[in-house]
């Protein structure tokens, strides 16, 4: 991957971006067990495949979501958080 599509600024060199890790749903800290919370804090889906990930475009300060295959390093689409269906 050399280029990445920022949902705001369009296609930019990947050196302008920072990887923010896998997108994860936070369990409700008031109701979940300690084990569930530890799982949320520490465990990751480490096996290869299509994943939703956080990425950050540095020059414009934009956090967004990229759907990327971690085996082939191909990005299928990117969108701002919460705008999955608009993209």
């Amino acid at each position, binding site marked *: 991957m050399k280029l990445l599509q920022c949902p705001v600024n369009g296609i930019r060199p990947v*050196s302008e971006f*920072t*990887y923010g*890790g*896998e997108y994860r749903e936070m369990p409700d800290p008031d109701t979940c067990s*300690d*084990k569930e919370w*530890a*799982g949320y*804090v*520490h*465990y*990751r*889906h*480490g*096996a*290869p495949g299509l994943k939703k*990930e956080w990425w950050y475009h540095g020059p414009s300060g934009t956090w967004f979501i990229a759907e990327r295959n*971690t*085996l082939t*390093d191909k990005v299928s689409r990117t969108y701002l958080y919460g705008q999955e269906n608009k993209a």
Partner: protein
Amino acid sequence: MPLRLLKYAVSREHPAPRFFRDCTEPKKTYDAVIIGGGGHGLAAAYYLAKDHGITNVAVLEKGYIGGGNTGRNTTIVRSNYLTPEGVNFYNASVKLFEDLSEELDLNLFYSNRGHFTLAHTDSAMRTMRWRAEVNKHVGVESYVVGPDEISKACPQLDISCSGQAPILGALYHAPGSVARHDAVAWGYAKEADRMGVEIFQSTEVTSIDVKSGKVVGVQTNKGYISTNRVLSAVAGFTPRICEMVDIETPIVIHPLQACVTEPMKPWLDTILVSGSLHVYVSQSSRGELVMGSSLDPYEIHSTRSSLDFVEGLTSHITDMFPFLGNVKVVRQWAGMADLTPDFAPIMGKTEVEGFYIDAGWGTWGFKATPISGKTMAETIARDMAPDMIKSFRLSRFEDYELTGEKGAASVGH
């Protein structure tokens, strides 16, 4: 050439024995199956046979032995870590490495060089003093040195780093060494094979059979093998193997790249590491500079190489050694590093009975090869992890008892 050698030129008989048998058909059942024929898996097989008398063991390797991260690291052996658990563990490994050539009856080119971790900032100096004190406390020879002592050990080094990041001092670690990494895998394979362990190359595990929480066998591309003890020692493939037994881990895979220059006359006696410049460099017995840098910035399950890596690394290397500007990089490669959030490995039992894990070796696996093999063999033989690796257990994440190991390679402080 002596005549007795010349006759082999026309003969089909070859005088050199093979290191291990060419096993093709696995048996129906084994006392233990080891997934992964790298240094760690083969060392575990060797110590299972030698220390515990368990020789009915199969090592299953998807590619060829030592072809994964065992043959892709920068061959540095050291124990100057930050946590007492880590220092003790890696020190035991260094001790085993020192006598390993003799034990395996194979020259591993183990070469004691001394190891300098350079500090370019006050905060890095603080970490060096911290590491030195922990090391001394545990009985490991590490101490902080100033620029003069570094210059004496390596006069070619530009202490000002071309004015970019002047070196203020270093953590000197006397036992720091390099070894020929492939030979470590071959040596363990040879001796394990001699004691009866069977090594299968081109043999991939496709699923692991678990019944009521216990391992009962593994399915491979060469048929089903029944066993009630399985060790996963597969580094970058750990998440895929763990998925087969439905175990969650914190491991993520980032490529770690390295490269070598063309061979030169010996000039670099020591091993030099700079956390701030993201460089580690030593000269191999063949004369090449073996160099590594930091991890690739995002997760990929791939061993592809990138130009960004060599550009970044060579710019920093020429800050340290400006005269290397005309030296050519001849090879570069990558390994899939299995990273944990606390930079300590994951070793021991899991919630699946009979499934043992040796993983999370990120950027610090090669130096641990002998001790990980020895402690994992004990874990498998007794179904109980020895005290030395208890702080590396997988359940530490659920217990919120992490082992913050920031002395690992390519980790900033």
